[in-house]
């Protein structure tokens, strides 16, 4: 966003005289001020504060000496890289992401294509029906599914008494199901809106060339909406690394969710100790990892697009 703002600033003086440029500058400043203030207060300042916290360690004298914070360099980061729970939790969400993200986006793409095809009737109804779960707050959705999975409270006892959906081996996929249920509709809508932006003449041309609906979808629609797919994939990767709500709620349904189940849960429980400095270091590492992962994904997909 800030890059957009600089762009505007650079363009403005070249177009108008100096006074007009000044006025433009003021207008630009005024218009981006609300965003800038919020961005500063809720993104930049907390990030800087977290980095600052992560560079400190606690010192005290005696059993109950008063704590003082001193600069500790990167010693908290050394602890992060030695912490096996942290890496186990990162591995867990990566496994989750590798399975859940493709399934969710595949379903979202399928639903979007169905909504866009002339074959389906009652489009308005389905559009709303697919999107409705996203309107359910995450915590509520997790609680609801928790009840459905629970062996003693579920209305589907025939299933839940046979298969333990909340055991160590299955609970990760039970959570994946909840996340998929919530976010399929949201991703579908992004893909669907980009399908609507495709000019209809292209379809006409394809039909004249003798392409059927399936061929149009495969050879025209999907390549043209590739940017939307990349966008939803990046959002999903970020969301996966930040899993918190569902496992936190599932703690009350399953004994197998530990306080270090996902990276964010680990950050949360470390901050509760309270060991803010280590929690801050975890967060910084997690943020950088998320950034790198998103960046690498974008790079890979863009190169692919260029080659194609």
């Amino acid at each position, binding site marked *: *966003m800030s*890059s957009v703002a600089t762009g505007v600033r650079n363009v403005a003086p070249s177009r108008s005289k100096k006074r007009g440029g000044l006025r433009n500058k003021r207008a630009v400043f005024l218009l981006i001020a609300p965003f800038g203030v919020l*961005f500063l207060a*809720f993104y930049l300042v*907390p*990030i800087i504060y*977290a*980095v600052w916290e992560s560079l400190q360690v*606690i*010192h*005290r004298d*005696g*059993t*109950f000496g*008063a*704590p003082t*914070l001193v600069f500790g360099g990167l010693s908290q980061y050394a602890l992060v890289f030695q912490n096996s729970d942290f890496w186990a939790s990162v591995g867990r969400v990566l496994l989750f992401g590798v399975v859940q993200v493709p399934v969710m986006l595949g379903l979202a793409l399928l639903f979007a294509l169905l909504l866009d095809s002339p074959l389906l009737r009652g489009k308005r109804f389905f559009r709303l029906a697919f999107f409705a779960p996203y309107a359910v707050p*995450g915590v509520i959705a997790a609680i609801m599914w928790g*009840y459905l999975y629970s062996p*003693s*409270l579920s209305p589907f006892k025939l299933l839940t008494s046979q298969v333990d959906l909340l055991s*160590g081996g299955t609970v990760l996929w039970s959570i994946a199901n909840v996340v998929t249920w919530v*976010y399929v509709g949201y991703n579908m809508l992004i893909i669907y809106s980009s399908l609507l932006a495709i000019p209809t003449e292209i379809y006409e041309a394809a039909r004249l060339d003798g392409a059927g609906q399936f061929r149009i979808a495969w050879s025209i629609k999907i390549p043209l909406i590739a940017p939307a797919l990349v966008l939803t994939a*990046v*959002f999903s990767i*970020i*969301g996966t690394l*930040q899993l918190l*709500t*569902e496992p936190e709620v599932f*703690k*009350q*349904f399953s*004994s*197998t969710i*530990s*306080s*270090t189940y996902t*990276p964010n849960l680990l*950050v*949360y*429980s470390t*901050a*509760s*100790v*309270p*060991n*803010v*400095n*280590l929690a*801050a270091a*975890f*967060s*910084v590492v997690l*943020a*950088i990892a*998320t*950034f790198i992962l*998103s960046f690498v994904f*974008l790079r890979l997909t863009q190169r692919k697009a260029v080659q194609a």
Partner: protein
Amino acid sequence: MAMKHIRFAAVVALASVALVGCSTASGGGPSQAAACAPSKGKVTLNMTTWVPGMDKVVALWNAKNPNIQVKVQTGPNGNSGTYQNFFNELKAGNAPDIGQIEYDTLPAFRVQGGLQDIGACAGVQAAKSEFSTGLWNQVTFGEKSAVYAIPQDSGPMALYYRKDLFQKAGLSVPTTWDEYAADAVKIKALGGSITNFPKGDVNWFAGLVSQAGGQWFSTSGGKWTVNLTSPESTKVAAYWQDLISKKLVSTIPGFTDQWNNAYDKGQDWTWVSAVWGANSISSGAPTTSGKWAVAPMPQWTAGANVSGAWGGSSSVVFKGSKHPAEAAKFILWLNTSSEALTKLNEVAQLYPASTAGDQLPALSQPVPFYDNQPIYVTFGDAGKVISPFTWGPTMTQTYSDVSDGFGAALSGSGTLQDALAAGQAKTIAALKAQSIPVNG
């Protein structure tokens, strides 16, 4: 997941969302203020607690003390969120004047520099005679002139059991842990479970360890010693691991709807719990009214009479309060006057910590839910035989690490003994991270 917020922002900004949730807490001011001078004029005190109905108790005080008005805010149980709020508020410098803290977490708040020493405030030292030596030691850490909290309630443990089911099955109430394990087999054969082993209630487990004579922490020579793997602690863990391995106990997370359901439907037959658990059963399993009874805890050696404690809270004045004298005056009234203690027992079934509170008429009354048994008498007797227990300075961490290990044991990987060993190592690491001197 943060997906809802990120629709319009750039990837760089998005990646940083992870940073935002975690940037507060910890720290605290240094030096203890010894003096405790009263403030002039009208004073308003803020108080945060999770005792249900506390507003009704405070209303009694506010009506009589126009110059010291108390505002109550209620939150979730300490370990379910209120402690973290306190830590954050202390770091931000806007903690309430008065807070509720369980005995096991007092050291953690002291280590973070969060507690105001009210030893110099009027009436505080004199209150010593109102409490048992063990409890008073918990709030003074054994120091001569310092007082960091006023005890509110205590959590002596006993055995809640389904009298009707035991009678029907021809079982007598178990008085030793051996009998308890034998009954577990018989109850399993009848399709029930003798009790539930909750992975998250590590403080409950600590109560069992204290009954067995174990200690998890001690201090000497300015250093902590962590001893989660003491022989007594290991004995208790092995006992429950055996019941878990044989699938004789249910393993539902405690205080959840599933857990309520297990008691309400008669799936689980007993609960070794604290006095305040009486309220948990009557509210969570309302259809079992009149079917429960309370007996002393099973013993490790036949004929012995030892109990443990689970929970129990104190009232503290937080660092940064502008009116410590008034706050101390209020929490003394709250926790030692028969007026306040009677009301606390009426609205929240609290069992008063003060020795005079023992004599409240309400505590000898029959309780209808427990088939008119005067259950508080049994708990009062248990309270007299609690073996004292020393709490560590990072209990939140110890609880969550041991609980993670318990969870693994319940799902079949590892044992409770492994969980204690892991908890031991992680607690020592946590103390070192806080720069607290520790052996090992």
